Structure formats: structure tokens, C-alpha cells
């Protein structure tokens, strides 16, 4: 006789460790995408200039936002990828149930999110150093060139929360498509259709997260959403048979 | 030792016969423990149930006896029992077939006996 919960957790954890090693090469995708984003953002993310007749003043603004944005896209695809047959298949030789499979996927996505957020935030530091070396330093505005350590940690925490949220979304979409391949076509159609018709509504939903300026409240919102998204994904899968 | 799996003779009988030969050859003495079903299974790559059946066959014929918890042991007089059995069953069966075949080939009794004598003589010469 053994405790089933402990069992589920222990096997999920073993699977999580297994997947961490198994999917470790997904990291190269992240690195590649971050480097590409870095190259894009070395040109500056926004450009402002004004002039009067004799003078033009321009300010190029730099940030690692693009790198973070690209990493968000990456984690979204990883979320979908983990639900695909090719990736689910590796669970089969292991001790598994659909719940333990989901839990280990969630664990992997969390680690991937943390890693993605840390690296993408730190690529911002790399970007500053590259620009420091390549630019005339008298052109660099000191303000915000040095990211405070507090800002770095804050950025990492928020980035992680966002990435977990996005990965949960990807995972849900992937799980839905697994029910029927028809959803592969239906979901984007629905999303784009709704985006057009209910733009306001979508913007409001988006603002729930993006305009929340209180960190604890934001974390709470993300947490609840993530639990719902992963919960629905987990509820979708138990009746799914293994097809090979 | 390789068993003949294609043979129509069941494997457990082949096992029993092989053990009988071992006993006849003196590889097992009286009251000596014979192979267990698991040893046999391992040796012949057969299911232990099959090996057990072979041993049980010998036990039924009182060639081996069981000691609870210790395994199968060669019965006293096992050699004699085997010889008797083989003479009775195998030799008789063979002779039956021999006689039928001889009849088919028009070999009469005297001729058949002569042939048997010859074969025996050749065997003895080879042994020398």
C-alpha cells in the first residue's frame, strides 16, 4: 500500500527530470532567437527626432524588449511543442499517466520560462555592453544605462510570470489541437475572427495583465490564469488514447 | 544440450528421457539429488513448468522421489526401473514396428534374427 499522491508527485518529478534532460536541446532555439533579437535591437527599438531649421536632434532608444518578446514567442511554441505526438511519445517507456505527463510538462515549461526570462533580461546587459563598446560614449545617455540590480530582478520575475502565462496558453492550444486536428485550422480562425470582431474585448483582457502595475496583484492574476489554463489542458487529455 | 523442438515428441518427455540416460550412465547415483526444475529450465531454455512435468513423469514411474523442500532424488533401483521400463515400452514398441516393417519387406523371422545378430556383432567389434 502506498500513498497515491506521493506516488504521482514522485513519478511526475522523475518525469520532469527526464524531460529536462530530454528537451535540453530546445535551449538552442532560445539562444538563437535571443541572438537574432539582439541583432535586431542593436539598431535601436525606437527612433525619435525633431528639428528646427538648423538643427536636428534624434534619440535612438534601446532596450531588450525585443529579445524578451522573441523569448515569449519561443516559450509559446515550446508550450505547443510539448503537446505534440512526437514529444508526448517519449513518456511511453516511462511510468506515466496523463496527469503525471502534464505535471512534468508544466514543470519543464516553468524551468524553461525561468531560464528564458533570466537570459533575455541579461541579454539586455549584453546589449548595453556591445553598444557601449561600439558607440561614441558621449552620445550615450547615462540615465538607465546602468540597470539597477533591483530592476534586473524585477524584470526577471515579471518576465518569468509572463512566460509561464504564455507557455500555459500555448500548452492549452496544443492540447486542444490534440483533440482533433480540425482545431489546427479552427483555432487561428477563431482567434483572428474574434480579434477583428471583439477587438475591444481582447484589448481589455490584455490590459488586465499589461496595465496591472501592482506586482503582487499581477502575480496573483497570472497565477490564477495559469492554473486555469493548465487545469483545462489537463482535463482535456485523460481520455486521449495513445496513438503511435 | 539442444532439444529437438521440431520433433513431435513433447519436450518434457525428451527431458525425462535425457535424465534417464544420465542416471543410466551413472552420472547420478542412488539417492543423489537430480537437477531441479529451474536448473533444467535454465539448461535447456525451457519453461520451468515443462521441466517440472518431465520430473513428475519420472516421479510417477518411481525413478526419482521427492523430498519435501529439498527436491528430487534418484530412487534406489532407479536404473533397474528405467531398464525395465525401456525394455518394456521402447524396445517392445520398436520390435513391433520392426516386425511390421519386416513383414512388408518379406523378411522372415529367421532372417530378421540373423540381421539382429549381425548388428549386435558389429557393435561389439566397434567397441573393441
Amino acid at each position, binding site marked *: 500500500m502506498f500513498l*497515491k499522491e506521493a*506516488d*504521482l508527485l514522485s*513519478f511526475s518529478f*522523475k518525469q520532469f*527530470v*527526464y524531460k529536462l*534532460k*530530454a*528537451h*535540453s*536541446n530546445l535551449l538552442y532555439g532560445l539562444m538563437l532567437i535571443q541572438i537574432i533579437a539582439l541583432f535586431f535591437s542593436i539598431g535601436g527599438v525606437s527612433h525619435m527626432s525633431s528639428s528646427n531649421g538648423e538643427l536636428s536632434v534624434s534619440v535612438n532608444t534601446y532596450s531588450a524588449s525585443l529579445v524578451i518578446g522573441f523569448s515569449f514567442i519561443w516559450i509559446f511554441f515550446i508550450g505547443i511543442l510539448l503537446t505534440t505526438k512526437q514529444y508526448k*511519445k*517519449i513518456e*511511453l*517507456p*516511462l*511510468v*506515466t*499517466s*496523463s*496527469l*503525471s505527463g502534464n505535471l512534468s510538462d508544466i514543470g519543464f515549461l516553468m524551468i524553461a520560462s525561468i531560464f528564458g526570462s533570466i537570459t533575455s533580461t541579461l541579454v539586455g546587459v549584453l546589449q548595453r555592453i556591445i553598444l557601449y563598446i561600439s558607440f561614441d560614449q558621449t552620445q550615450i545617455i547615462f540615465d538607465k544605462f546602468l540597470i539597477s540590480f533591483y530592476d534586473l530582478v524585477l524584470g526577471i520575475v515579471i518576465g518569468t510570470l509572463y512566460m509561464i502565462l504564455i507557455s500555459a496558453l500555448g500548452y492549452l492550444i496544443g492540447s486542444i489541437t490534440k483533440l482533433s486536428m480540425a482545431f489546427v485550422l479552427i483555432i487561428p480562425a477563431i482567434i483572428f475572427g474574434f480579434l477583428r470582431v471583439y477587438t475591444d474585448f481582447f484589448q481589455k483582457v490584455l490590459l488586465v495583465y499589461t496595465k496591472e502595475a501592482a506586482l503582487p496583484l499581477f502575480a496573483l492574476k497570472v497565477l490564477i490564469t495559469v492554473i486555469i489554463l493548465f487545469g483545462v489542458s489537463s482535463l482535456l487529455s*485523460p*481520455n486521449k*488514447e*495513445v496513438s*503511435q | 544440450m539442444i*532439444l529437438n*523442438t*521440431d520433433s*513431435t515428441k*513433447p*519436450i*518434457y518427455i525428451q527431458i525425462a528421457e535425457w535424465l534417464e540416460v544420465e542416471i543410466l550412465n551413472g552420472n547420478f547415483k542412488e539417492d543423489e539429488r537430480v537437477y531441479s526444475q*529451474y536448473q533444467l*529450465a*535454465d539448461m*535447456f*531454455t*525451457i*519453461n*520451468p*513448468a*515443462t521441466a517440472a*512435468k518431465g520430473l513428475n513423469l519420472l516421479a510417477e514411474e518411481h525413478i526419482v522421489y521427492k523430498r519435501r523442500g529439498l527436491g528430487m532424488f534418484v530412487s534406489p533401483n532407479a536404473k533397474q526401473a528405467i531398464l525395465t521400463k525401456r525394455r518394456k515400452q521402447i524396445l517392445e514398441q520398436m520390435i513391433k514396428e520392426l516386425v511390421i516393417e519386416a513383414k512388408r519387406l518379406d523378411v522372415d523371422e529367421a532372417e530378421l534374427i540373423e540381421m539382429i545378430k549381425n548388428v549386435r556383432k558389429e557393435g561389439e567389434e566397434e567397441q573393441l
Partner: protein
Amino acid sequence: MSVIQCQNVTRSYGKLKAIDNLSFAIEENKLTGLIGRNGAGKTTLLKLLAGYLKPTSGEIEVFSQKPFNNLEGSSKTMFVNDTMTFPDSFTLIDILSEVAPFYANWNSNLAKGLLDYFSINPKQPHSKLSKGSKSTFNSILGIASRCPLTIFDEPTSGMDSAVRKDFYKALLKDYLEYPRSIILSSHLINEVEGILEDILLLNQGVKSLHLPVLELKKFAIGLRGNAQVIQRFVEGKELIYQEEFAKGYLYVVLRSELIQPELKLVRQSGLDVLSISTDDLCIYLTAKSRGGIDYVFKRS
């Protein structure tokens, strides 16, 4: 104690019934062979037992629980088949150590020893293996996991005959050392017959028979000889197989118990009484149409 209990299990794919109203039980620590021709439903049955598939109707219990999506069941079951996939980020030797923590009885030395014995390069990924090596490697996992229920689905496909023999030997040796319930599916019975205790013969999703191998030998008997004489004996009896191998000469196979009382009489009437090899018996039992391939040629 029954490890597996199936009650009226049916599994259909659309209209096709891969498993049709199957009932059987498998006792603990038996080495059972699941025999059937290609498409008999062997793999479907094994997937049902391993919890990969759900039965369309009927009850399956493995270790007294429904196997589908059951973690506890999965922890006690190892299903070796040729679609097992392992990540490319693992070499074979990695796989052995990564899979080990999942199985309580895992024998790591045995796994490494077997990998070494079968001289498969342990530094390559699973997906690069040839079909035979893949089968060998998967089978090593099956043996080393020492799961209370270990299922091998056509484990030897692609192996050469030397490796096959070694595999069966290894399987049996480990089974003797560590008894457990093993199901071995194969379409080649004479290869596995020796190591099996029971045989479950499947024919187009239906159970043909489920017997100890030892009884299978005595299960049927063949009669050969003059057609008219044979007809006299087998009149009204269910024949397993029948073949007219020369004009006026018949070869029939029927269950031993049907003819046992008259066997002496049969012999006296000059008919040959033949025992049937398990291999032939399985072929006869699972033949698509009575009369065999000859029948097709005679008709055309």
C-alpha cells in the same frame, strides 16, 4: 491470483473489431505467449493491457485495476514494442540510467551487461539504431525493468536468429531468477514454444484457445489414410483441418478428446495416427479458410 482479467473485452476501430468479446485471465508469474497471425489483434490486445487504449466495451483489470491512464498500473507494467521512442539527447547508455529511476526493480548491471553482450555501441542515440538493434535494445529494457507485468510485442522482429536465441535465453534466465508475469507476442510459435508456459491463441480478435503449452501438444490429433475410412470415424465431428492430399486420401485434424475412445479402432483400420506440432496446430486453428493454400489452387 490473476494478474490480468479480461471480461468480454471488445475493441473496435470504426467498424472493424480488432478484439471481439475476449475473456481470459492470466495467472501471476506465468510466461504466456500471445500467438496469432498478422492482424489477429495481438498488438491491440497488448495495448489494451498496457493501458494505451481503452476497451470499447468489456472490463480489463490488470493488478485489479483498470489499466487505462493508471499510474500505479504503469509503474508495474513494462510494454516493449517497436514504437518505443527515446530522445536524441540520450545515448543508449544514458537511456539505461535515465529510465532506471522509474522502475523499482530495475537491474542496472543486467541492463549494462546485456547491452555489452549484444555489442551495441552504447554511445549512439536510439533513433539511429537499425531495426534489429532497436528490437534488441528495447528487449533489454524489458528484461532489466523486471516489472511485475512485462509485455513484449513481437520483440524479436529484425533480430537475426543468433540474437533471437540469446534473447530468449536471457529472458528465461532472468525469469527464473526473478519470476514475474510475462506476455510475449509472436507469430512464430515454434520459436517461443519452449520457454512458454501458457499459450493464448488469437484469431481475428477472437480467442481460439488459452492452454498450457503441454496440453496443446495433446490437444489435437491427425488422421491420415483412406478417405472413406476416415469419413466413417469423423462423421459429425468438428474438424480443425482437412485436406485431400491425394485422390481418395484424406488428412484430417480434430480435437483428441473426440476420437480418443476409438483410437485403437482407428489404428486397426490402417489409418495413420499423427500427433500435431504446435506450430501446425496454430496454423490450422487460425487458417482463414479450411483447406489451406492448396484449396485456392484447386479452385482456379
